[in-house]
């Protein structure tokens, strides 16, 4: 097993390194999107797969980081490093505020994060003197650090690849640390963790802020890739689709969210190229995933005890009662 796993990652690494030289622009750009949105899905999955809470507003952090970087680059001609750090910082700061949502439970948390996400979308849409409204912010230059300048999509591909790999490895360290174990403990039973002396709320809050910050990293990568940002980046649709990516791929895993990103983005690109009704297809994917693959592709492959779509809920005795009475 170990050697097979090694061979898989080696093949993936080689493919990742040579991809821009063997594929055309369309595919390279698609791979970049897959990496960026995969990172965003990974951020969301820290909460879905490990803490067992379901945020539906992560487009907010992604968009705030993208807008901040875009505005600093396009209007104030700030250097890339400053703009990028400010982007991630703005997402973190927003997460410090929105993180208070962890005080709410279950459905409330879902709905509250959704409404919070809508604030950012509303500001992006309505505060047009600052955010450009529906016209968005464009003309973002390619990133440049000192004498190192990205001169084309092929260069930027490697930037995306390196940043995503670094943050994914850091993510792996975090979820495998005692902190990550505590989060999964909270997912299994909040009351038990509390009685063991863990500060449950603080752990949830910390996970939320980390998740928001990571979404911000994805947002910064996105803005240099897309070089344009407008309100749909902050829309609820993105939040929902990113959650779907995490679920489709297999939540609670590291490869899962990226796999989900591959599936969703390929469907979306393929379908929208051939059919006007891509939203219908997307809706059907939502429905089929929930009904038939709640544990995602990693769940189908097996071995992984991914919690999928039914964490916490089925474990709380009170909910079980209502389940049974439903028949």
């Amino acid at each position, binding site marked *: 097993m170990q050697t097979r796993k090694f061979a898989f990652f080696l093949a993936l690494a080689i493919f990742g390194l040579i991809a821009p030289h063997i594929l055309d622009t369309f595919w390279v750009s698609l791979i970049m999107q897959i990496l960026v949105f995969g990172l965003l899905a990974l951020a969301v999955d820290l909460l*879905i797969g490990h803490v067992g809470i*379901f945020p*539906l507003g992560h487009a907010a952090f992604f968009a705030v980081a993208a807008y901040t970087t875009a505005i600093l680059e396009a209007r104030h001609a700030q250097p890339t490093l400053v703009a990028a750090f400010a982007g991630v910082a703005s997402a973190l700061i927003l997460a410090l505020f*929105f993180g*208070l*949502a962890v*005080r*709410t*439970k*279950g*459905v*409330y948390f*879902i*709905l*509250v994060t*959704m*409404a*919070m996400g*809508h*604030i950012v*979308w*509303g*500001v992006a*849409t*309505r*505060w*047009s*003197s600052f955010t450009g409204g529906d016209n968005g912010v464009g003309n973002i230059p390619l990133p440049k650090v000192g004498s190192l300048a990205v001169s084309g999509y092929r260069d930027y591909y490697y930037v995306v690849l390196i940043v995503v790999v670094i943050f994914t490895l850091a993510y792996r360290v975090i979820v495998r640390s005692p902190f990550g174990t505590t989060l999964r403990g909270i997912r299994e039973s909040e009351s038990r963790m509390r009685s063991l002396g863990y500060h449950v709320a603080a752990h949830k809050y910390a996970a939320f802020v980390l998740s928001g910050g990571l979404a911000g990293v994805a947002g910064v990568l996105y803005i240099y890739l897309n070089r344009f940002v407008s309100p749909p980046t902050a829309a*609820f649709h993105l939040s*929902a689709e990113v*959650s*779907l990516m995490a*679920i489709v791929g297999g939540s609670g895993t590291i490869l899962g969210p990226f796999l989900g990103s591959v599936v969703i983005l390929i469907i979306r690109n393929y379908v929208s190229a051939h059919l*006007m*009704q891509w*939203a*219908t297809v*997307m*809706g*059907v*994917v*939502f*429905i089929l*995933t*929930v*009904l038939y693959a*709640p544990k995602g592709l990693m769940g189908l492959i097996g071995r992984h005890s991914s919690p999928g*779509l*039914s964490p916490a*809920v*089925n474990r709380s005795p009170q*909910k*079980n*009662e*209502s*389940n*049974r*009475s*439903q028949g």
Partner: protein
Amino acid sequence: MNWAIQTLNGISMGALLFLLASGFTITFGLARVVNLAHGAFYLLGGYMGLTILWVTKNFWLALLAGGLSIVVLNYFCERYLIRKTQGNELGQVLLTVGIVYVIADIALVIWGGNPLRIAQPEIARGSIELPFGIVYPRYRFLLILFGIIIGTGQWLLYRKTQLGAIVRAGVDNRETVSAMGIDIDRLLAMVFAFAAFLAGLSGVAGGAFLTVYPGAEWDILVLALVVVIVGGLGSLEGAMVGSLIVGLVDAYGRWLLPEFSYFVVFGPMAVLLLFRPTGLFGREV
């Protein structure tokens, strides 16, 4: 003067939100179903009503058709899709989001991307002169009255009748109600149908002054969600108070701080939740 107009605008918006939110909240209270498809129900109800209005030229038939079409649609959505996700909140949310995608996309194909106005009925056209010399659109004034009537009726039904008592008991403890020999599934079906009817009807009622347009499903859903979050999920009284608050705050926000109108609605909600995580009238879920 302006204050009075904006206040009335807020109340009439609140009346519309109540129509949508009351169904959502009771459905949640009784069946623990988070049905985000309510937004799409609003949209599709509006379009169905509009179509019937084109054919029959009768607003009241349109209102009825908007409501009934959604009852049928919701029956199938509930029976074949939503029921399978019982007890799985994120699953329900994502599934119903999927339903919204599909319905909204099909509606776009059929009715196109331009906002369509539903013609107001004869008796609701023009404006009405209220005390203190306030001149206000008759339609929105009637909508307020309609909201009050539906709200009062619902409250009486919920609080003062045996049927209401059973529903309330079902919200508290479904197993016991079931054990008392009451057919809880039939009760659920009735509540679902009622909620769907109100959602479809609100689409027609709203379409007559807000127009029906692609995207309306999210615009109205998010406001309705704030209503139930502020009021407390599962509480009818909460939906009443929440609708009024959200309607008023939304109206004042659009008027006084147009660039931050969304923030004005959602910001206070977030703060409220810090102190009362289950809303004003909500209970632990």
